[in-house]
């Protein structure tokens, strides 16, 4: 026997979650297997669709307008622009704490590096920081948190030509947290207004922080913080600080470890649970049985191989960084099903000599048919019942195009929809 489902999704990132939620909402019995925790913890929480063309033109105002001009092999062209729209609609239903769905045009959001990023959706917590707003901004950093240097970020934003005045100040976080305090520690203290000692007086951390920022604030109507303002009730933290400061409060999205990413992870898993989907994490899928069709896969747990079977499979294991695509001196491969990954034979053709040049490796991934089934070198589907979604797909450079989230959502949605239909 094996543990059975209609649809088995391998991978717990944005693509895997989107396809699992889609298939579960279509009525399929779905199981999602994630080797490790969701990679959303490493994501900034901004959800882009397309910020720049492959030629580097941009920032784009309307990503949907640019999609028909992308190369035929781009995942957006394979699923079609209408599917991208529908998929973003599903995302809006699931991620209720997200903004930007009211329009097809990109929003411009400041990042913790002081750049301005074109993005299709953004967390409600980042909304007041939007860069096209001309109201002045005060950025507040914490001395113990060196990842976010507010004066430096402000200087970068000024250099980027934002249409407002922006100042950055660094304050001591009340309670003098240790220099290596974790983002979760800040979030917990702020969410519960936890007691801290300020010059011998016991105070709520949130109240004490507001008092400190109040002294630094001139009359900026917007105040931005690093993204540590609470976890489960981030909205409550912003509202409480906003009331004390008489300003709109926002978080500046950051790199890993990222609370906005973690909150999105929670929202996606809640949606999967609500749709009746099952999931588990902690152990890798390492092998499979099957010929033209995959019959079952094996999850490895400390040497034991646990059989898990389904009618339809979705491969959403990520790209070169996520380990869904692996490489060594000999070649580039997809490790679970050994799907074909097109790449030049000479590995000196895999990269560009210019560090920020157009690296061919950025486009490495499986090459799918219109149903997103990975194809062999001869152009036939590797398996009848395997579809791929997200960064394991080739043909797009998410880092340069700012398209990683959108491709994951669109291909995840498409793979999940087709898998659920086929599983019936």
């Amino acid at each position, binding site marked *: *026997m094996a543990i059975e489902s209609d649809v088995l999704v391998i991978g717990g990132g944005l693509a895997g979650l989107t396809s699992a939620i889609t298939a579960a909402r279509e009525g399929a019995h779905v199981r999602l297997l994630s080797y490790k925790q969701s990679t959303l913890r490493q994501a900034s929480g901004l959800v882009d669709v397309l910020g720049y063309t492959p030629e580097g033109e941009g920032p784009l105002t309307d990503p949907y307008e640019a999609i028909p001009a992308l190369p035929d092999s781009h995942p957006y062209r394979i699923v079609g622009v209408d599917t991208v729209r529908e998929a973003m609609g599903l995302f809006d239903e699931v991620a209720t704490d997200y903004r930007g769905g009211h329009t097809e045009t990109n929003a411009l959001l400041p990042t913790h590096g002081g750049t301005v990023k074109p993005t299709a959706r953004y967390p409600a917590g980042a909304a007041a920081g939007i860069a096209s707003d001309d109201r002045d901004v005060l950025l507040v950093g914490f001395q113990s948190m060196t990842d976010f240097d507010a004066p430096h970020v402000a200087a970068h934003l000024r250099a980027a030509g934002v249409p407002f005045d922006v100042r950055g100040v660094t304050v001591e976080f009340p309670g003098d*947290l240790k220099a*290596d305090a974790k983002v*979760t520690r800040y979030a*917990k203290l702020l969410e519960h207004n936890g007691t801290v000692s300020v010059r011998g007086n016991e105070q709520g951390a949130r109240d004490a922080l507001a008092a400190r920022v109040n002294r630094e604030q001139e009359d900026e109507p917007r105040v931005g913080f690093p993204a540590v303002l609470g976890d489960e009730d981030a909205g409550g933290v912003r509202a409480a600080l906003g009331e004390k400061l008489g300003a709109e409060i926002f978080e500046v999205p950051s790199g890993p470890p990222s609370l906005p990413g973690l909150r999105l992870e929670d929202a996606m898993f809640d949606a999967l649970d609500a749709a009746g989907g099952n999931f588990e994490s*902690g152990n890798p899928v390492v092998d499979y049985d099957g010929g033209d069709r995959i019959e079952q896969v094996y999850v490895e747990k*400390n040497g*034991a191989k646990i059989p898990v079977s389904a009618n339809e499979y979705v491969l959403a294991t990520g790209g070169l960084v996520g380990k869904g695509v692996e490489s060594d001196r000999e070649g580039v491969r997809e490790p679970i099903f050994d799907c074909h990954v097109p790449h030049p034979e000479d590995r000196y053709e895999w990269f560009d000599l210019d560090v920020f040049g157009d690296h061919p490796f950025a486009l490495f991934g499986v090459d799918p048919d219109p149903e997103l089934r990975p194809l062999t070198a001869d152009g036939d589907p590797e398996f009848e019942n395997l579809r791929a979604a997200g960064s394991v797909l080739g043909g797009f450079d998410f880092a340069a195009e700012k398209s990683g989230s959108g491709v994951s959502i669109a291909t995840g949605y498409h793979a999940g929809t087709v898998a659920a239909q086929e599983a019936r």
Partner: protein
Amino acid sequence: MSDAEDPSFDPVAPNTGDSYEPVDVFPDSDDFDLRPGADSCYKCSICDTNCPVAEVDDDFPGPKFQGPEQWRLKQTDDDYEIDDSITECSNCMRCDDGCPSGVPLSQMHNTARGQYVDEQMSKFSLKYWRNRILANYRTSARLASIFPRTANFAMNFGPVRWVMDKTMGIPNERDFPAFATETFRKWWQKQGGADASRERAREARERRGEPRDADKKIAYFHGCYSNYNTPEVAKALVHVYEHFGYEVVVPEQRCSGTPMFANGMLDDARRGAKVNVSSFADLIEQGYDAIASCTSCSMALRKEYPELFDIDGVDAVAENTFESIEYLRIHEDLKGEIEDADVSDELAKEFAYHAPCHARNQGLERQAVELFRDLDNVGIEDVGESCSGISGTYGWKSEKYEKSMKIGEEMFEHMEHAEGTTGMTECPTCAMQMEHGTGYEVRHPLELLEAAIVE
């Protein structure tokens, strides 16, 4: 010309010349080589976001420091002493599950904690002996179960507890778990042990239309708690497995070592592991699988043993150990039976389910919810991914009691929001904490499974 095109260049053979003298950077030792793991860390800090201790205590430097960073410090400086904060780690092992790079964080923590206790902790200190007594729960439980009623009275008698708190640092606030008047092993003997189980399994197979001599047999690792404190869980396991036609044997066994790892008492743990591995490896060779009903016990046999001890048979035991319900999901149509079943006794109610941290790395965090949400007359709700905070003996130390309760706060809140007022979990100490924080009665999934499918 690139080096790939240079015919004299062979990347496989080191081109060092004759004068090359290899330097052994890390001399031979019997320890497990943690270097590849330490090198795999790329400092994303996802482990730190998983740490329940660091979330409530910024003095705790978190798993990234305790693991790869401290390991490197140990290599570069012979006089490096393990940081005292290693004793603040609760060994929840959540960092392992978070690491996208496969760094064996809990193995590093266990190793460092063992070294700390061996070399830096005074063997004459009260704390050492308090920890050692807590870690060797089986020893105290065995004594207490000789006179269970007396022990139950004495262990929760106010003045006794006041003295224990003041002298030993065992928090007054907690209630000691009650000892059963009959241990599981005594009950098992009275039932006729393995021979009688074989008979019952054969009858069940006939009833199920399976061959009378089908090769279905398991060796039960009951652990200490379901032997001395909750034999109803162990009995449920026997009833459920025999219902599916499995012969059960209950071999000689010691503590799995979970509380010893968490207290850095690796010698005590190794002694127990030797007995357990020898006893279960023999049975595995005869075709048995090892089954545990406590997720920390199964975690120890599966993961901590092979990561920490080089004992004959340790890998065979790890590969063939399963959690009790997981095993049935793999080998039986458990879902089908549950869909056809219903519960009409006192367990027909709503449960607030908490997944123990040690169930997570085994991929079992959603198993109970997945199974029981299709069970008639029963409701089950996951109370979220937070840690219960007790972490075995951790919350049983006066100096850590408050921290343990702070960690548990989120779970208590979620339990109170859940519809059910009965808790459910696989872990005996999580169950203590759930009960302590909410006053709810807490049951094991096997008890509900027994109520649903066993006649």
